[in-house]
C-alpha cells in the first residue's frame, strides 16, 4: 500500500518503558522470512536516531526495538520498515510479554531434566539388571544402587512429570480422564512402590523406567508444541496479538495513531487509500470507493461520498477519507463478527482428540487389568506384596508411551510435508478434524475466484490506447487494464478524481478514463465493473471486467468429488455472479446473498444433518463460518482475521492445496490408527506377561523403548506417504 507520511502519526501509546530509563517497542513484521530480510531490517532500524538496538525473531516475526530514552519515535520505525518493503503492526504492550513462548521453554527444560534423570538413573540400574541375570551383585551393593537410582530419578520424575500431573488434575476436575491420568497414576505409583521395595530389600525397582517413560512421552509433547508454535510464528495468531491502530485527527490538525479500543464516538479519523476502516463511521470529507469484498463477499467496489455511513472493515480504494466515528470499536460491525468467531471457536474446543478418544477406552481396561491382577494374585496365594508388584508391572509395561508418541510423531511428519507444499497446519487437532471431513463449503470471491478483476475480451489496440492513463492510477480496475499491456508509456499532467476517474495527456491529446458519466457517456447504466475511455471528442471505448476463476478450481472440485466429498458454494455476492461461477464449476448446491451470521448458521446446520464440513474462505464475512466449521482452510491472501480463524492456511495461486491437505490428513489419520493398532497388539502380549510375573525391570525398559521406537519409525514413513 502506498502511504505518504506527510505528517508521521504518533505511536507513542505503544511504547513500553524499560527499567533502565529506556523504552521498548515490539512490533510484528510480516513477510520477514530470510536471513537477508533480517539483516536489512535490523540494520535499517538500528541506524535510526535514538535506537539502541533492534532484534528480529525470525521464527515468530517479532521485532523488538530498544530506545535510549523514553521519547523514542515508534512511528519512524514503522515508516522505515515500510520503505524497506515490510508491513508491520505494533503489539499491545500488555500482551507482548505473553508472546514469549513460556510453555515451550518449560517443555524443553522438562525434556532436558528427564533425559538427565533417565541416563543417570539407568547408570545405576545396569548393575541391578546384571544382577538379575546371575551376575555377582551383593545385597549391600544392590541396595546402594537402588538408593542412588531412586534419589536421582525421583526429583527428575517429579519435575519432568509436572506438565502431565497438571493436565491430569485439570481433566479430573471437570470429571473426565484424558491420557495424562493413567500416565500420572503410573509414574507416581511406580515411584512409591519402588521406594517401598527398596526399603523392604526387594529385588524389583522401576526408578529408571518411570523417568524414561516421561522422557519418551515428553518427546511427543514437545513435538506437538513445536507444531503449534511454528504456526503461531507464521503470524497465525495475529489478530489476538496485534493491537490494530487508527489515525485520529485532533482539533489542531495533528495526527495520532491510537489503539482501536481508545477511539470514541465523535473522533475524526483519517483513512488513506489502501487502509481499512477501523470503526463504523460517516464520511466528513473526501470521496472514494470502498471494497466490501471481505466484509460482505460483494465483488464490486461501492462509490461513497460525504454524509454516507461506512462499515468497519471495508477497504478504502482510491481517495483520502476523513470520517467521524459513529460507534466504538466494540460496537462496530466487525466486533459482532468477532463475537460469532468466539462462539465458533468454543464449539471447536470441545472436539475430543484421537489420542484422548483412545485413552477413554484404554484407561478403564488397563486399570481394571491391574486391579484384577492384584485381587486375583492375592486370592490365588501370591501374597499381597508380590500381587501388588505384578499389578504395578502391568501398569508400567502398558503405560501409554507408544500411544503418547503415536499421534504427535505422525502429525509432525505430516505437517512438515504440507509445509513444503506451502500449506501451514496450525495444530495437530486440525489435521485430525480435516481427515474426518465429508462436505466442503467454498466461499466464492477470493477462493474459487482470484478475487481481483480481470479484463474480459481484451482488444489489444484499445488496451494500448488507454494503458498510459491506466498505469498512472492505483485503482484496481485501472491496474487490471494496465496489466494487459506490455508498454511503459505514461500519461502527462494526470489528475485523478476520487471515485470518478482519471484525466491526462497522452501524446499531447487530452483523454479520460473512468466511470461512464466522467468520460461523458450519456444514458449509460454505469455498472461498477466497467471502465470507459475516450480521447476528448472521440469515440468512447468500454472495458468490462469480471472476477475470473482460479485456473485449477474445476480440477480441484472434481478431485474432491472423486474422494467422495460433496461440494457447496456459500457467497455474500449477488445471485447472478454466484450462479455463473457455480455453473462453470458444475456445482449444484449454492447460496448467494448470505450475511456472516447466515453462513455460520448454515455451516452449523450442516453438522446437525450429519455432515462434517470443511469451510474454505478468505473474507471477514467467512470468519464466523470458518470458526464454526469442523475444519477450516484459508488462502494466504485472506484477511488476518480469517487466517486466524482457519486451521490451515495455504499459499500459492492454486486451490489444489485443499486436495493435498485432505489427502495428507487422511494418510496421517491412517498411520496414527496403525500406531494405535500396534500399541494394542503390544499390550495384548505385554500385559498378560506382566500378570504372570514374567516381567522384570530390564524387560520393562527394553519393551517400553522398543515399542516407542517402532511407533516413531512407522510415523516417519509419513514423509513418503501420499506422494
Amino acid at each position: 500500500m502506498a502511504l505518504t507520511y506527510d505528517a508521521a502519526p504518533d505511536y507513542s501509546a505503544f511504547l513500553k518503558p524499560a527499567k533502565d530509563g529506556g523504552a521498548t517497542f515490539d512490533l510484528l513484521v510480516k513477510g520477514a522470512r530470510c536471513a537477508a530480510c533480517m539483516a536489512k531490517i535490523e540494520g535499517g532500524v538500528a541506524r535510526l536516531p535514538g535506537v539502541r538496538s533492534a532484534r528480529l525473531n525470525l521464527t515468530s516475526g517479532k521485532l523488538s526495538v530498544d530506545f535510549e530514552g523514553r521519547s523514542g519515535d515508534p512511528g519512524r520505525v514503522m515508516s522505515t520498515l515500510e520503505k524497506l518493503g515490510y508491513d508491520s503492526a505494533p503489539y499491545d504492550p500488555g500482551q507482548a510479554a505473553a508472546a514469549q513462548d513460556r510453555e515451550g521453554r518449560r517443555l524443553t527444560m522438562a525434556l532436558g531434566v528427564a533425559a538427565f534423570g533417565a541416563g543417570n538413573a539407568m547408570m545405576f540400574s545396569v548393575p541391578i539388571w546384571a544382577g538379575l541375570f546371575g551376575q555377582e551383585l551383593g545385597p549391600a551393593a544392590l541396595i546402594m544402587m537402588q538408593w542412588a537410582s531412586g534419589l536421582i530419578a525421583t526429583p527428575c520424575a517429579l519435575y519432568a512429570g509436572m506438565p502431565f500431573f497438571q493436565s491430569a488434575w485439570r481433566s479430573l476436575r471437570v470429571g473426565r480422564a484424558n491420557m495424562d491420568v493413567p500416565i500420572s497414576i503410573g509414574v507416581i505409583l511406580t515411584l512409591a512402590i519402588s521406594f517401598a521395595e527398596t526399603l523392604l530389600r526387594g529385588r524389583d525397582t522401576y526408578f529408571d523406567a518411570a523417568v524414561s517413560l516421561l522422557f519418551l512421552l515428553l518427546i511427543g509433547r514437545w513435538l506437538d508444541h513445536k507444531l503449534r508454535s511454528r504456526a503461531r510464528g507464521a503470524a497465525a495468531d495475529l489478530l489476538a496479538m496485534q493491537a490494530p491502530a487508527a489515525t485520529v485527527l485532533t482539533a489542531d490538525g495533528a495526527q495520532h495513531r491510537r489503539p482501536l479500543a481508545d477511539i470514541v464516538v465523535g473522533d475524526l479519523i483519517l483513512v488513506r487509500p489502501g487502509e481499512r476502516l477501523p470503526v463504523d463511521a460517516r464520511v466528513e470529507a473526501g470521496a472514494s470507493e470502498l471494497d466490501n469484498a471481505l466484509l460482505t463477499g460483494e465483488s464490486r467496489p461501492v462509490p461513497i461520498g460525504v454524509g454516507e455511513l461506512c462499515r468497519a472493515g471495508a477497504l478504502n480504494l482510491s481517495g483520502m477519507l476523513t470520517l467521524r466515528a459513529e460507534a466504538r470499536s466494540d460496537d462496530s460491525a466487525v466486533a459482532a463478527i468477532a463475537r460469532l468467531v468466539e462462539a465458533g471457536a468454543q464449539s471447536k474446543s470441545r472436539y475430543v482428540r484421537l489420542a484422548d478418544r483412545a485413552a477413554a477406552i484404554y484407561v478403564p481396561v488397563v486399570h481394571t487389568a491391574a486391579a484384577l491382577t492384584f485381587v486375583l494374585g492375592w486370592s490365588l496365594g501370591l501374597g499381597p506384596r508380590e500381587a501388588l508388584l505384578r499389578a504395578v508391572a502391568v501398569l508400567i509395561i502398558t503405560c501409554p508411551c507408544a500411544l503418547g508418541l503415536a499421534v504427535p510423531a505422525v502429525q509432525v511428519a505430516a505437517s512438515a510435508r504440507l509445509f513444503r507444499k506451502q500449506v501451514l497446519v496450525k495444530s495437530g487437532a486440525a489435521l485430525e478434524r480435516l481427515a474426518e471431513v465429508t462436505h466442503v463449503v467454498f466461499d466464492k470471491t477470493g477462493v474459487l475466484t482470484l478475487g481481483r478483476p480481470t479484463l474480459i475480451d481484451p482488444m489489444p489496440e484499445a488496451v494500448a490506447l488507454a494503458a498510459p492513463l491506466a498505469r498512472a492510477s492505483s485503482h484496481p480496475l485501472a491496474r487490471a487494464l494496465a496489466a494487459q499491456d506490455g508498454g511503459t508509456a505514461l500519461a502527462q499532467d494526470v489528475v485523478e478524481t476520487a471515485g470518478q476517474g482519471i484525466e491526462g495527456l497522452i501524446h499531447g491529446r487530452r483523454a479520460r478514463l473512468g466511470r461512464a458519466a466522467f468520460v461523458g457517456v450519456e444514458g449509460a447504466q454505469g455498472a461498477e465493473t466497467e471502465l470507459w475511455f475516450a480521447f476528448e471528442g472521440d469515440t468512447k471505448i468500454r472495458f468490462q471486467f469480471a472476477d475470473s476463476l482460479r485456473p485449477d478450481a474445476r480440477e480441484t472440485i472434481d478431485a474432491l468429488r472423486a474422494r467422495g466429498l460433496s461440494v457447496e458454494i456459500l457467497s455474500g455476492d449477488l445471485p447472478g455472479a454466484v450462479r455463473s461461477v457455480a455453473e462453470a464449476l458444475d456445482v449444484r448446491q449454492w447460496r448467494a446473498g448470505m450475511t456472516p451470521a447466515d453462513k455460520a448458521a448454515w455451516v452449523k446446520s450442516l453438522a446437525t444433518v450429519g455432515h462434517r464440513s470443511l469451510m474454505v474462505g478468505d473474507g471477514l464475512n467467512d470468519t464466523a463460518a470458518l470458526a464454526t466449521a469442523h475444519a477450516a482452510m484459508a488462502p494466504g491472501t485472506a484477511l488476518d482475521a480469517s487466517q486466524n480463524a482457519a486451521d490451515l492456511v495455504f499459499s500459492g495461486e492454486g486451490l489444489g492445496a485443499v486436495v493435498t491437505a485432505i489427502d495428507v490428513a487422511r494418510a496421517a489419520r491412517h498411520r496414527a490408527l496403525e500406531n494405535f493398532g500396534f500399541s494394542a497388539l503390544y499390550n495384548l502380549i505385554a500385559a498378560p506377561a506382566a500378570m504372570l510375573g514374567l516381567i522384570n525391570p530390564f524387560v520393562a525398559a527394553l519393551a517400553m523403548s522398543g515399542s516407542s521406537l517402532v511407533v516413531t519409525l512407522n510415523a516417519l514413513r509419513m514423509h513418503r506417504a501420499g506422494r
Partner: protein
Amino acid sequence: MTIFFLLAPFSVLLALMGLAGFWWTVRSGQYDDPAGDAARILMDDADDAPALIQVRAREADPG
C-alpha cells in the same frame, strides 16, 4: 570397590554440570528463534561475532 564411592558421585556431578549448562541455554532464550540463529551465524557484519572471526575474515579478504 571403594573407588566406586568417588567415581559414582563424580559422574553424577559431571552430568549435573551438563544439566546446569542446559538450564542456562534454555533460560537465555537460545531455543526461542532457531530459524533466526541459523541465519545470524552467516551474517558477515555482525558486531557480536567473536573478534577472532572478524580478524580472520579481514585477513582472508585483504581487498
